[in-house]
């Protein structure tokens, strides 16, 4: 249960970091971490397929695309001042969310936990990744490698200019 709640807290934490980060790259990485957390939640709730696909598509693929796109943006474009005033309202919003969560979240989490108990022991994370979707792992590795090559291919040209 603690592990489960921790995942929810982490998910919210990464999501907030993703939207408030100053650097686009940090934002993209936080989004990937959010996807990893969400996929762990899926596994925990007994939906290994959803978990594997979330991990494959969002954490792997989308991140590579984002990082590729961010690397194409010229460095001077990043220096535009951005209006961050709206983020000052964030603590207020968090407080409102906290109060609402106080009422609604415990029963919701309890229900999720009962689902989790029902799903316990069906498929483990390792089994789902390694036995069901082993070829995908290869694709993921290739995807990550390609992401690195894309950055290596695009960045030298930028620094030259």
């Amino acid at each position, binding site marked *: 249960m603690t592990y489960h709640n921790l995942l929810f807290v982490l998910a919210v934490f990464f999501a907030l970091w993703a939207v408030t980060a100053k650097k686009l790259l940090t934002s993209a990485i936080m989004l990937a971490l959010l996807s990893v957390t969400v996929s762990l939640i899926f596994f925990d709730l007994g939906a290994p*397929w959803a978990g594997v*696909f979330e991990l*494959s*598509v969002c954490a*792997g*693929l989308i991140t*590579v*695309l984002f990082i*590729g796109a961010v690397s*194409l943006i010229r460095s001077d474009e990043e220096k535009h001042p951005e209006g961050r005033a709206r983020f000052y309202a964030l603590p207020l919003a968090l407080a409102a969310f906290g109060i609402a969560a106080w009422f609604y979240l415990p029963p919701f989490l309890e229900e999720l936990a009962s689902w989790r108990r029902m799903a316990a022991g069906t498929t483990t994370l390792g089994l789902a990744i390694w036995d069901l*979707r*082993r*070829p*995908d792992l*290869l*694709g*993921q*590795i*290739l*995807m990550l*490698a*390609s*992401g690195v*090559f*894309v950055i*290596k*291919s*695009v960045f*030298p*040209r930028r*620094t*030259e200019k």
Partner: protein
Amino acid sequence: MDKGLLAYLLIPLLSAVIIPFAARSRARLADILANVTLLAGLLNLAWLALRPSVIAGGFADIPGDGFSLLLVGAVYLVGLCVTFFSAWFMEDGQANRPAYYSLILASVSAMTGVVTTTDFFTLYVFIEVLAVTSFALITTDESTKGIEGALKYFFLTFPASALIIVGISILMLSLGSLSFETLRIFMASDVPPGPVTFAAALIMLGFLIKSGVVPFHAWTPDAYQGAYAPVSAHLAGIVTKISGVYAVVKLATLLRFFDGRAAALSEMLMFLGLLSIAVGALAALRQKDFKRMLAFSSISQVGYIVLAAGLGTPLAIMGAIFHLVNHATFKTVLFLNSASLEKSAGTTDMEKLGGMEHSMPWTSWTSVIALLSTAGVPPLSGFWSKLLIILALWEAGLRGYAALALLFSLVTLAYFMVMQRKVFFGKKTQAAESAPEVGAPLLAPVVLMSALIVALGLLFPYFYAYAKMVAERILL
């Protein structure tokens, strides 16, 4: 996944990872590593499939379904031609040289993954890898046109990915499995297809967009024309064929179009195929840029493959497979020749070129071989694949389709003749005066591919035996 062919995926990936480290101080090592990796793979494949004992046994010893092996061979062949060509084409001081070769090897690896997988989701993952690597490769020289082409490629292929993933999830819901075999067994049974054909249609639509079939062809000419010159050969020769057309042919065999279970889908596919043939050929007639004309010609030739896949009879599938391989050979020659022209004369504008035959005879005559094969002139390889497709159409009673396919084959010959006269024959223009023939290393891959076009045509009976074996294994 076909485990026997796994090494062909892993080794290029390994080389791709090693290259940036190995070539840190000596950039030329990147060229050597990439070429050696692909050459070794190709020799290994030749040993697997072309040993005299295997040929004498009617290719019965070929592992797997044979289709994967053939396409892995085509991927390696085009990859080798492109890397060998790039080694001499690329400027010496280019900063991202190692990353360029790593990307080419990663795309070879991804294409091997695409053709060896037996599961829809894995197919999707590898095709996305291919999209990412292609995007970076198109922008290699960072020209404005390259970036425009890459962006168009992105904007059109990502909705396609979305369609594919929605199709895959519906397939998962209705079949409970994502393996090719489940779909094949399901289509062979008597259970009403229901949502399964809908899911297959969505996946098919996604792959049609990725293969640049009319009316989803808007990205193709810009991407091919704007791409870094050797990359356009890689892209047009093999990448779009594997990431789109291969999947369409594979789906056509899995859906068993010939027994009429997905008749509406089959008819739609044939119609789009014919539309592509017509629109591609007519648009190619009006182009002024060599590379752009080749791109439209590519759309038209893809139409033939899609038309045959839509028909789905064993003969048509054989024609589709053969045309897929042929397309890889002749389009690589033509695009590499356009790259040579660009390097030597500084332009690919057909109005400015003329009489290049006098100064670039090798480039001119290899182009003639490739264009005659594309147009389907006997005894070159393109003739046999078009003959198989047209015969299959005739046999199935679709005489109108057969006649139109034949007619547009003549249009193909016409636009290529116009191209040849404008670019290579006729009076020497100013551009031709100062354009020397490119060096032997740049000609080597083109000459090799042209020889292959002639050889595949003359040794057709052997290839027919192979294609027949493949069609029997994947359909029956």
